[in-house]
Structure formats: structure tokens, C-alpha cells
């Protein structure tokens, strides 16, 4: 690109670098703050001395988490949920995307299925009717309540379907001549050349399942069964809410206990670590994925 030389353009370039740097900082500093709080002494946290670096560095909060049964139980529930959700989502997405990628002529019922899926994406029964269904199936307080209602992520089905439509027909025809059944065509021809889109929907599933706190909030009646995000959310019940609900004195004292602030911060940091571990993958697949796979039917 031809750039006009001169003082003005240099100042302009410097300004652009500076603004971009500041925007990066604005995204980073609040996250650093909570990490700093988690590593700071409780006295320093209570006195609001902690900015973006730990004050009175200590790992006490993290040591306390190690012995926190409920935290690890919730962590475990979230891990199980992510695994179950991932397997279920991937199997159903792939199984549905393949027939839907066929033309109306090749797959007679296609438009009916497609219309049903699109309508389910546009319209839903709402919170209470869905809750009643989950309750009547006896799923409350089980991990299945977190996984089954979201078993078919329709957006992901359409994304994979679009990708399958782009797979050369000749590959399938060759396999069919060799006597492959549709299922074999799917697993031996389509899946091996669809790794990027499979990775993308897999990551959608993992992040969505890990981050969701709402299903835990409505489908779990006991704190024992909370997934991690719901558990962490329940920690930050605000003082006025407790007063409104007529909270007991001991629970108030518990909230006033400032040392819990760095403990909560540490719990939040630990809850993010699994996401940070897969972040390079997220950057690779989700970010290219949204550009490639977003729209078109």
C-alpha cells in the first residue's frame, strides 16, 4: 500500500498503534484485577489496595479451594456435563447434517425436517413449559437436565450441513460404486474431510456447556448438584438480597467476611483455566469458523 510520507502520517500511525494498545489494555486490565485479588492477602483486599498486581502475595485462597468439597463436586459435574454434551451433540449433529445435505430429490423428506428445525429455532415454548417437560421426565437434579434439552444445537446442524454440501459429489459416487452404505459414506468419506467444521461445532458445544449457569439454576434444586458456573454465581448473592429474603445472621456474617472476596476470585480464576487451556484451539477454529460457516443455506 502506498503511504503518504511525512510527519502527519507518522503521528497518525502512532495514534492508531496507541489506540489499539489502549483497547487491548482495557480488555486485559479488568481480568488482571481479579487474578491480582485472588493472589492478595485478605487485609489488602478489604482495604481496596489491590489494583492490577497482587498485594501481600499469597496462595492462601488457592490452598483453601483445594479442600473445598463443593467446589470440586461442581467442577466435576461441569466436566461430566461437557463430556456428555459434547458426545451427544456431535453424534446428533453429524447424523442429522448428512441426510439434510442431500438434495430434495435424493432425500424425499428433507424439506419437512428442515422446516421443523427452522421453526424450532425461531420459536420456543418458553421457560416454564420447558421446565415442566424436564420435570415430568424426572430429570431434575440430574446431569441429564443440563445436557438433554440442548442435545440438538440447530445452528450447528445447519453449519455442518452447509459444509457437507460443499464436499465433491464424485467422492460419494465412488464410494457407492464400491458398495458403501450411506452410513459408511458419512463416516469414511464425509467425516475425514470435515475436520475444521467438526472442530468448530465441538468447541461451540464445549464452551456453551461449560459457561452455562442458567440450566443449573432452574433444573437443580440442591446446591450439591450445581454445575460450576451456577455454584460460582450462587456465591455472589448480594447483601440486600439476603436482607430482603430475611437471611439469618450467620449467613450475613458469612457474606461480610471479607476474606471470602479473594477466595471467590480464586474460584473464578480456576473456573476459567479449562477455557484458557483450549483457547489456542478456540482462536484457530471459532474465529475462522464464524467467517466461513456463518450464513447461507
Amino acid at each position, binding site marked *: 500500500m502506498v503511504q503518504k510520507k511525512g510527519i502527519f502520517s507518522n503521528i497518525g500511525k502512532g495514534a492508531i498503534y496507541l489506540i489499539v494498545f489502549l483497547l487491548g489494555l482495557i480488555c486485559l486490565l479488568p481480568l488482571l484485577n481479579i487474578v491480582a485479588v485472588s493472589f492478595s492477602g485478605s487485609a489488602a483486599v478489604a482495604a481496596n489496595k489491590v489494583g492490577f498486581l497482587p498485594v501481600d502475595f499469597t496462595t492462601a485462597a488457592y490452598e483453601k479451594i483445594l479442600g473445598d468439597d463443593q467446589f470440586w463436586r461442581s467442577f466435576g459435574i461441569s466436566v461430566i456435563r461437557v463430556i456428555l454434551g459434547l458426545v451427544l451433540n456431535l453424534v446428533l449433529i453429524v447424523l442429522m447434517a448428512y441426510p439434510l445435505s442431500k438434495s430434495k430429490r435424493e432425500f424425499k423428506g428433507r424439506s419437512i425436517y428442515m422446516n421443523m428445525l427452522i421453526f424450532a429455532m425461531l420459536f420456543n415454548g*418458553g421457560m416454564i413449559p420447558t421446565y415442566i417437560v424436564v420435570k415430568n421426565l424426572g430429570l431434575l437434579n440430574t446431569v441429564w437436565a443440563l445436557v438433554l434439552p440442548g442435545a440438538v444445537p440447530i445452528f450447528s446442524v445447519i453449519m455442518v450441513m452447509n459444509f457437507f454440501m460443499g464436499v465433491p459429489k464424485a467422492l460419494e459416487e465412488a464410494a457407492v460404486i464400491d458398495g458403501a452404505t450411506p452410513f459408511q459414506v458419512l463416516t469414511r468419506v464425509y467425516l475425514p474431510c470435515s475436520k475444521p467444521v467438526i472442530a468448530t461445532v465441538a468447541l461451540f458445544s464445549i464452551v456453551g456447556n461449560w459457561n452455562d449457569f442458567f440450566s443449573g439454576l432452574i433444573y437443580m434444586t440442591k446446591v450439591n448438584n450445581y454445575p460450576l458456573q451456577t455454584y460460582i454465581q450462587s456465591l455472589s448473592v448480594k447483601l440486600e438480597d439476603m436482607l430482603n429474603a430475611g437471611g439469618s445472621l450467620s449467613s450475613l456474617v458469612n457474606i461480610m467476611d471479607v476474606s471470602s472476596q479473594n477466595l471467590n476470585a480464586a474460584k473464578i480464576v480456576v473456573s476459567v483455566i479449562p477455557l484458557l487451556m483450549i483457547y489456542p484451539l478456540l482462536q484457530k477454529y471459532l474465529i475462522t469458523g464464524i467467517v466461513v460457516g456463518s450464513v447461507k443455506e
Partner: protein
Amino acid sequence: MKKKTFIQKRIMRSQSMYHMMMLPGMIFVLIFSYVPMVGIVMAFQDYVPAKGILGSEFVGLQHFKYMFSLPDIWQILTNTVVIAVGKIILGTVMAIAFAILLNEIRVKFFKKAVQTIVYLPHFLSWVVLAAVVINMVNLDGPVNQIVQMLGLDKINFLGSNTWFRPMIIVTDVWKEFGYNSIVYLAAITSIDPGLHEAAAMDGANWWKRIWHITLPGMLPIILLMGAMNLTSILSAGFDQIYNLYSPMVYQTGDVLDTYVYRMGMISRQYSFSTAVGLLRSVVGMALMLIANGLAKKLTDRKIF
């Protein structure tokens, strides 16, 4: 010719297999999407859990009449639309501006580092980010320390009806502008660099080139994203608001989704909550259809 018909036959014989493949997923869709739709009749009943949907008494449009007689509902609709529109406008402007600026960055590692950081908040949940935001803006937090350094009074950002909506909008833009800039960045890089070179030869400065080349080049994507954003006008972001609001700011911060949740799960007014939810779903669906029509007309692409 003969080979072709053989293949055709094989493919036609695959029909039943295709239906088998659809079956497991469709069972889940039927149970968890379509059965709840039947439950919508609750909105026209006085639903009592013990009696169930079959035994509860029908009351017609009573809940809808009651809903529109409440001053709450207008306040909540206003809150929802103001917050959603604020997020859409500020979010779009920020994402486009950031994409344009990022495109000018030539130092590779700097660009990579900034991208890694600004995309990160998108992947974190509002449970986590609400804690981060509360830490930042509480009365003695870093933001208020800056406010005090400027010689102003401390501001209760999340507890004041003046500040709550701007806080919701700004924190949402903070979380998403990086990630949202990705599509715009892709649109910018697909613009022919020859256009910029020619304009620069003709003496057009940076601003002029952005205004006359980059922005028009991005227009299809901007229109498409605008149409998609239209669908979110009735969902101002449940997770975010639920984790940041308190009874003090219900007046400006309560939105349709949080209201449906409190009426249904906390106050246990099942029928009323379902009625409000139904209103939201119907208008939401209409918006989706409009958005899809607009996207098709303006950009030749469909959203779904």
C-alpha cells in the same frame, strides 16, 4: 449412462437410512422443542401444577389483559429495547472502528497479541465477567479511584438508575467488540488494495480512503450483521443483566427475560410468566423473519 442409473438407484435406496439418521435428533427436538410449545396453552389457563395442563381452568386472554394493565410491562419493554438498541449501535460502531484500526497494524506480534486479548472476553461467561465488572466498578474499586482522582464524587455504577443502562451497554460492548470485529476485519481484507493505491495516488488522505473505499466495501457485511442484530432487540442479554442487577435498579434494568424468570421461577406465577414469554417469542419470531427477508433483499444471503 448405465452406470449413472445404477448410482441413482443406490442413492434412492438410501432413503430409509436417511430417515433412521434423522430419528434420534428429531426425537430430542420433538421432546424439548415441540412438546413445550404445546405447554403454551398454559398462557390461556389458570395453571395449577397439581391439576396439570389438562385439568387447569381456561381463562382466555385474562393474563394478557392483566399484563398490559400493569405499568411494569411498559417499563420493561422500554428497558429491553433501549438496552438492546444501545448495545447494537455502540457495539457495531466499536467493532467496525476496531477492525479498521487493527487492519492498519503492520507489526505482526503486536497485532497477534492484541487479537488474543480482545477476543478472550467473548469466551468467558457472564458469571465470571460480572464478578470482574463488579470488582472494577464497586464504590472503592479501580474505576472509582480514577473518578476520585479527577476530583469527582464516587459513583455507584451498578446501584443507580442513571448509570445502570449505560453500564450494561458498555460492559457488553467491552466483552464483544473484539470478537465482533472479526467479520468486519475479514470484509476489509477482501477489499481490492488497488483501490486504495489509486485513491492515494489521486491524493486522498487516510480518512477519505476509509470513508469512500473501506466503509462502502464493508457495506454488505454491515447490512447483514445489522439485520441479524435486529433479532436480538427483545433479548437484551439475560445472563449479563441477571448477574449485574439488583432490586435497586429494576426500574431501569429489568428486561423481558429477567421478568419472565422472576415471575415464573421465583413468584411461581406460571401462567402469567408463560404469557409474557409467549409475547416475547412471537415478536421475536416476527423480527427473525423480517431480518431474514431484509438480509436476502439487501445482500443476497440468508440468515437461516
